[in-house]
């Protein structure tokens, strides 16, 4: 009987079995941020425990940080306290911290892969549900709660039940204006936000094979939005090329040993999955959400379904049976761990170049990390955005969850490249519509919900 990719990686990390379904799982990389760690560090202090493996642990400040004037002290008292608590804890326990002002600072799921901290075949955790992002490199990566953050700090292991396996295959090439974000929003609209509950997803098929690593990150990022604990893509030549030259890629003998292991990382032909679904790339169009969970999305040219949940429609002030095209929007947010990497910014800039945002729109670009910011500036993308009327700011989670000052005002619409459109997610009463960076850019220009394909020349893809 063959093994799935997930099982191969999982088996390699079992320290011991507790019972037939429960394992002590070793964790190779633990990413820490300021919001879900303070109570975990407190637990260690109460028990007089050190951090067991500081060389498997990295921290950054992202959720609370301002996206303007990051060289100044954080204004908001509670945010400042949380970030200061992280700094103090990292100092006390000896944990490597890429805090504000550090050239490696950024959204935790952006910096892991870009620094070569995340590798194929490893286990990675973080006290954040979008840890699934790291699965794009072929890692078993999943979000954990604060109790588990404490366990990982204290023993570098977790007691875990092996998840069920699901394979989502998409085959074929993507049409004009269709991006990885549209692929995952489409899947969410088809299987709903609980379609993968209790499962770990493997994304397979020619569409993902052809996709860039950053595109795969966008897809894996939203695995949790399908109810899955995580999602991963089998590593291939693209993955290995992506990793070349990354800061923390292991070297010499360590790397050779890893590379031999990486060659084994695919699901065997005879492997069986608990659930399988298949889609065709040609069925996917640019997507937008109309409701208050990421599964409530439609092809941008379609009408809001008649059976859409009423509570959602009321909150969003949209009507069943209507098209969203032409609907006025007030905000555009290009950012978050879903879509704030350099390729996302390049894509948005390619559409924005030479155009101007509608006067009533507040449009923001928040790069995912200091490295992305630096690269974008080197390529002149900041100038393109600013010339068009966008604000180009400093890295952090920002309006994805509005823990800092960047919030969407009550009752206003925001076309957002983030991953959650829950009630109040971007600010109390804010109305979020999830879309790709390309669609978000198009909406910023017209000030309304727009089918980006109508703004693209034939040469543009």
């Amino acid at each position, binding site marked *: 009987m063959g093994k799935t990719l997930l099982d191969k990686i999982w088996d390699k990390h079992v320290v011991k079995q507790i019972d037939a379904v429960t394992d002590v799982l070793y964790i190779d990389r633990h990413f820490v941020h300021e919001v879900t760690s303070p109570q975990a560090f407190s637990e260690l202090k109460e028990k007089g425990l050190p951090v067991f493996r500081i060389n*498997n642990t990295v921290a950054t400040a992202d959720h609370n940080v301002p996206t303007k004037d990051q060289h100044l002290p954080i204004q908001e008292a509670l945010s400042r*306290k949380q970030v200061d608590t992280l700094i103090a804890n990292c100092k006390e326990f000896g944990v490597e911290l890429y805090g504000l002002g550090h050239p490696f600072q950024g959204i935790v799921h952006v910096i892991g892969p870009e620094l070569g901290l995340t590798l194929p075949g490893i286990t990675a955790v973080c006290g954040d549900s979008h840890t699934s992002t790291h699965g794009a490199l072929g890692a078993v990566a999943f979000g954990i*709660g604060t109790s588990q953050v404490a366990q990982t700090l204290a023993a570098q292991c977790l*007691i875990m039940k092996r998840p069920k396996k699901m394979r989502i295959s998409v085959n074929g090439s993507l049409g004009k204006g269709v991006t990885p974000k549209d692929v995952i929003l489409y899947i969410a609209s088809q299987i709903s936000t609980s379609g993968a509950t*209790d499962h770990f997803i493997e994304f397979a098929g020619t569409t993902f094979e052809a996709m860039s690593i950053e595109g795969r990150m966008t897809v894996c990022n939203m695995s949790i939005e399908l109810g899955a604990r995580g999602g991963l893509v089998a590593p291939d030549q693209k993955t290995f090329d992506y990793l070349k030259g990354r800061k923390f890629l*292991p070297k010499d003998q360590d790397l050779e040993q890893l590379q031999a292991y990486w060659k084994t990382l695919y699901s065997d032909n005879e492997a069986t999955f608990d659930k399988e679904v298949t889609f065709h790339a040609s069925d996917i169009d640019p997507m937008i959400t109309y409701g208050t969970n990421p599964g409530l999305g439609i092809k941008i040219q379609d009408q809001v379904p008649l059976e859409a949940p009423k509570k959602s429609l009321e909150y969003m002030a949209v009507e069943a049976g209507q098209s969203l095209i032409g609907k006025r929007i007030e905000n555009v947010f290009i950012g978050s761990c879903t879509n704030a990497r350099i390729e996302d910014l390049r894509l948005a800039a390619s559409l924005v170049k030479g155009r101007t945002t509608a006067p009533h729109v507040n449009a923001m670009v928040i790069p995912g990390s200091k490295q992305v910011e630096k690269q974008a500036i080197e390529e002149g993308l900041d100038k393109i955005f600013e010339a068009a009327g966008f604000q180009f700011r400093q890295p952090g989670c920002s309006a994805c969850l*509005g823990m800092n000052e960047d919030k969407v005002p009550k009752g206003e619409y925001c076309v957002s490249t983030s991953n959650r459109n829950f009630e109040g997610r971007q600010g*109390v009463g804010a109305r979020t519509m999830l879309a790709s960076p390309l669609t978000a850019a198009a909406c910023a220009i017209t000030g309304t919900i727009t089918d980006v394909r109508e703004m693209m020349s034939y040469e543009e893809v």
Partner: protein
Amino acid sequence: MKKFDQLTTTAIPLLIDHIDTDQIIPARFLKTTVKTGIGENLFRDWRYLPNTQPNPDFVLNQSTYSGELLIGGENFGCGSSREHAVWALMDFGFRVVMATSFADIFKQNALNNGLIPLQVAPAFWESCVQAIQNNPSTKITVDLNDQTVKFNDESAHFEIDAFRKQCILKGYTDLDYLVSIQDEITAFEAAHTVPAIGFQ
């Protein structure tokens, strides 16, 4: 970890599917560095009107229903991994959440704190909700030992992993166990292929 073995209580029905953790505890209340006092902001934006007055339409503000068991719809606790959602529910006074399904991370967080994620079949859920709506003083008994839930003359079995069940019955935490096997973990590392991070 708060121990749990058996509880008889009335229940509060919050009959909405896909209740996400952003509703249970909005992000702006995650700036705390402790676990206490967080129940104050449980379901904050549903519970209070914009003028900070309690919303009379929200079930937690109605004197009709009370109890230590919250009934939610399907996919309860979806969204962010914030354990603050579990702390908020427990700080408010809940010990059990009954739903037809739970989001994975929420379930794990609940089990790590001794909040029981009680998953029941839709038919049982419906008749339980109906009984409570007909008579809000209906008592529900949840017994972790024999994994049953009962009200009036109906009862059902619920699933919980054997290991988790023992932890909650005894109040054991994973952390203490993992620390106790650090030698085995060190031995595992010696033969492991993935190197630690080479910080300079």
